[in-house]
């Protein structure tokens, strides 16, 4: 992966977050949550800054980032698509829905489409098992999704952001 040069502004932002938590090593997870919340993802260069600020090794930071599924080192698409792979959704056909998304977007789970529009992930139970199988795009939840509806969902976002995806 090519090295990214972080903007001064980004570095200041990261330092601010670390300062807010008193540069304490024990607050690493909180720091990561906030930094990812601001930047969208946690590339290696960001982790280096955090490690320096919290006075710990980069390896330790990397160890924590890669341990938890919530943290990502890759930028997300404009419309992150998540397919619930909880058991309830699985037995109601989530796997077929997921493979249809993979086929149509031509990306694997964890990847982002070439145009930067969509990224694909699977998650474990959003707690809407009554609507299984469930797909979320950003904040919007789609319930009882069948593989046949996949192209329709993707099309909704292809021409830009539909009004309702913001309101949900």
């Amino acid at each position, binding site marked *: 992966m090519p090295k990214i040069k972080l903007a001064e502004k980004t570095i200041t932002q990261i330092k601010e977050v670390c300062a807010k938590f008193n540069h304490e090593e024990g607050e690493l997870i909180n720091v990561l949550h906030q930094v990812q919340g601001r930047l969208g993802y946690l590339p290696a260069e960001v982790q280096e800054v955090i490690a320096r600020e919290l006075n710990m090794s980069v390896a330790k930071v990397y160890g924590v980032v890669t341990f938890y599924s919530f943290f990502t080192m890759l930028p997300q698409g404009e419309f992150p698509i998540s397919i619930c792979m909880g058991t309830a959704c699985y037995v109601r056909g989530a796997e077929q829905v997921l493979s249809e998304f993979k086929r149509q977007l031509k990306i694997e789970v964890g990847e982002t489409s070439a145009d930067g529009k969509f990224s694909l992930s699977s998650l474990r139970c959003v707690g809407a*098992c009554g609507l299984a199988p469930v797909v979320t795009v950003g904040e919007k939840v789609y319930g009882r999704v069948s593989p046949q509806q996949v192209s329709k969902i993707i099309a909704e976002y292809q021409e830009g952001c539909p009004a309702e995806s913001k309101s949900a």
Partner: protein
Amino acid sequence: MADYKMHVLVCGGTGCKASQSELIKKNFQNQLEERGLDQDVQVIHTGCFGFCEQGPIVKIQPDNTFYVGVTPEDSREIVEEHLIKGRKVERLLYTDPTTLGQITESKNMDFYKKQVRVALRNCGFINPENIEEYIGNNGYAALGKCLEELSPEQAIQTIIDSGLRGRGGGGFPTGLKWDITRKVEHEQKYVVCNADEGDPGAFMDRSILEGDPHTVIEAMAICGYCIGANKGLVYIRAEYPLAIQRLKTALRQARQYGLLGQNILGTDFDFDIEIRYGAGAFVCGEETALIHSMEGKRGEPTFKPPFPSQEGYLGKPTNVNNVETFANVPPIITKGAEWFSSIGTEKSKGTKVFALAGKINNVGLIEVPMGTTLREVIYDIGGGIKNGKEFKSVQTGGPSGGCLTKAFLDTPIDYDNLLAAGSMMGSGGMIVMDEDDCMVSIAKFYLEFTLDESCGKCTPCRIGNKRLHEILEKITEGKGTPEDLTKLRMLSHVIKDSSLCGLGQTSPNPVLSTLDNFMHEYEAHINDSTCPAGQCKALLQYIIDDEKCTGCTLCFRNCPVGAISGEKRSPHYIDQTLCIKCGACYEKCKFDAIKIA
């Protein structure tokens, strides 16, 4: 609920929110304001009603009318007809599937009749964002009773006598755990609430936090009083934004009312609670892993002893309980140990919340007394199997549990019976499967989960589960051999016996229980290269029956990869080299002409 004449309770649980219940609430408010009724009728977002299958749900009080499947557009009709003219909107009432009669009140529905609500007592009844409603429903009375009437020892004795056991999975007696932590001498101790619900297909804890956050706060304060801790921590999944928001609101209100902070209720007891965020790791449900995660580290478990009650968070004595366990505590204190222990079976007292899901008619959140049979849960409360299909299996305990067959339908549910049956209580996920589910694939599905979530610290779990998964993959691809079955069983036992923590020690359970209960399905995959449920793609083919095919072209039009060809009004044909086996043609065909072979 002081000045209002009527209340509109709109379900604000995750499932209903996903079906626009926020907009429903807003529309109700607009409708009422337009008619100048907003001072007479109050609209409230409650926690989960439980009957998620029929959501979004709206309940009208005081007459308790229970509307199901409400859309944002329906609010006008409910306001005009019901609230103003007093006529129920019949088309939105629940229809009983057997009698086909309409039922207006939830207590008369089969789904609710057999339920006993202790942990969920307030979910769907009170506004979770208003502490006064919780107090109005006997809230914080238990904390008051403890501080004023009971010594810590007496309160702990009440919990011990009640027979309450941990609802997070293992079922360790809660009172005993408190007692152990109390007896460790240290100036700083911690109470931790485990709200890191990672079990796929389970949403009990989140629903309690969303529907009744104060009960958890109250119970944590009681626990703090009992064990001698003045600091509480809630470890919650960052993926639960609604639960976090409601918990934060509740904490703020509790502090305002002097129920958290210093000198609670005028006594010398101080207690406050902080929130810690998880970041998505199933293993963090394990106590020691959870504690490491709270310390900002990788959530890897460590060997016990020392137990958290001796050396926990930051090396201090720590008592960890799960959300549902805490939710049971206030009613035990107010109503007494005898009341609680009168519910349930000999060794499992009280009730248990289950997230009932899968191929069942009434998906939802339920709470039943321990000792209720699986049949009662699946058929009476759950309304039986979806689309009239045949029941095959019920999976309890999530990735740590097992798949039970028809033979276990009349087994009373409690910790020991489930364990004896080769499954476990777990946190309360209950997934029902029908004849179309391949049990080998289900075992593989759970192992995929374990593989993802294994922290990698100990070898049996890290590598053993990987090998188990590979063997299962081989079998579902039709490449399995009879020796694989022996290997599966042996390896499973090795992993169980030698893994460091609960995750590895239970991860082979789905494999073992399916081997025990569904051996014939494994054998069919291996010996006959067939998948009896028609799920394993490598082993099936979609074929068009020439005699039944009318050439309607429906399959041709629905095939996403253009694998189907044929002239109009003459039989069609599927090109097997192009077919991706998505099943779209099979589902669309109106003439039953597409066969799975």
